[in-house]
């Protein structure tokens, strides 16, 4: 299966729609490998556009293959309502993990990362559970924060800090000057900081 994912042939790009998404998810559920080809065809460009904001070109392709693999592993049991957004989240998180790995390599070489991994085995699961609880709570806080933002601020914030889009690109799409967009982003960040402090986070 792995080789089938890594050596996917080039497929012409198509636009996705809800009907195709449902059929696509059904293909995953049926463990039909055409699901991967269709995903590449419909969402290949979209997925790469997210990945390329976080990692370089070479890693983009690797992360894209990893994303396909993650989709294959997670569907089923998951049945995403919006396949595109489900894929976007997976791709973003994988790209970020790749980014952190690269950064760790640059700081201390591959060995440092290995040592940290080895030490991590000595830590109790509690820490991991605590971390995941904190992450879950933080995610909830962020969800409520973003949801309360006005539409323009929300779009700016999500595009910048979820999709890691360039400020200039976002500004162009919203008919703002890059400076104006940067000012809005700074205000939103300050607002977020206040909320996180209020909720007891150590910022």
């Amino acid at each position, binding site marked *: 299966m792995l080789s089938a994912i890594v050596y996917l042939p080039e497929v012409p790009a198509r636009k996705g729609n809800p009907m195709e998404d449902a059929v696509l998810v059904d293909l995953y559920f049926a463990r039909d490998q055409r699901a991967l080809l269709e995903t590449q065809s419909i969402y290949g*460009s979209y997925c790469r556009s997210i990945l390329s904001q976080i990692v370089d070109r070479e890693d983009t392709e690797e992360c894209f293959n990893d994303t396909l693999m993650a989709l294959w592993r997670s569907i089923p049991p998951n049945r995403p309502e919006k396949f595109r957004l489900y894929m976007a*989240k997976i791709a973003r998180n994988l790209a970020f993990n790749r980014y952190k790995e690269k950064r760790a390599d640059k700081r201390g070489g591959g060995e440092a990362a290995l040592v940290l991994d080895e030490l991590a085995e000595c830590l109790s699961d509690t820490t991991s559970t605590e971390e995941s609880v904190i992450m879950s709570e933080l995610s909830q806080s962020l969800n409520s924060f973003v949801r309360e933002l006005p539409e323009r601020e*929300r779009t700016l914030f*999500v595009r910048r800090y*979820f999709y890691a889009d360039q400020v200039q*690109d976002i500004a*162009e799409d919203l008919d703002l000057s890059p400076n104006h967009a940067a000012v809005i982003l700074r205000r939103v960040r300050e607002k977020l900081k206040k909320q996180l402090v209020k909720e007891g986070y150590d910022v």
Partner: protein
Amino acid sequence: MKADTLFEALGNLDDDLIDVRRSSSSRKRSSKIIRLRKISAAACGLVILSAAVLGVYLNIQRPAKTYNASFEANMEMTRSDLTYTETETMMEGGAVMDAEENQTEDSFMASSGMASTTASAAQAPVLVTDIAEHIQDSPLEILSLKEEDLVISISGEKMMLSETEDPHLLRLMEDSDFYEEVNAASLTHPGMYHLIIGEIEQYFEIR
């Protein structure tokens, strides 16, 4: 809290929150490229159009210039030198020209700056002799040149050459594709049309 943690937590935002419209920078770049291509295509089109307009303008201007500047002056000179006679023309039948005719023709061409267009230049006497052959018994009179046509008089009735119903002239035009030849000559060398018409006019004036 590290920025990493915050970034990672943002990865868990609800689907409806991250469902925002994005246009990737690559798509932007390609749309910019498309826009640039459209602009350059439009610019090319404009240049070609300008060149075409200029070409048409010059084509219109040049015959008039040639006619006005050179031809009028040369006509005066040539009238005295021209040695066509009805008898000679009849005998030659348009096929042979004597040296004097050639010389006259050459002086026409040279003085009008058309020496290089020998093929077109050779056409003129043929047309002249053709006309002479066909209209010798016609009560035709050429009055003047108006725009790209001749004002003629047949039995005292004025009309344009292109409107004539004179059987001799009509036959001439049908037989020798008179207008096509004249037009072709005027295309191969601007001013040739006027030169030919002028020569015909000259011929009939002498006659």
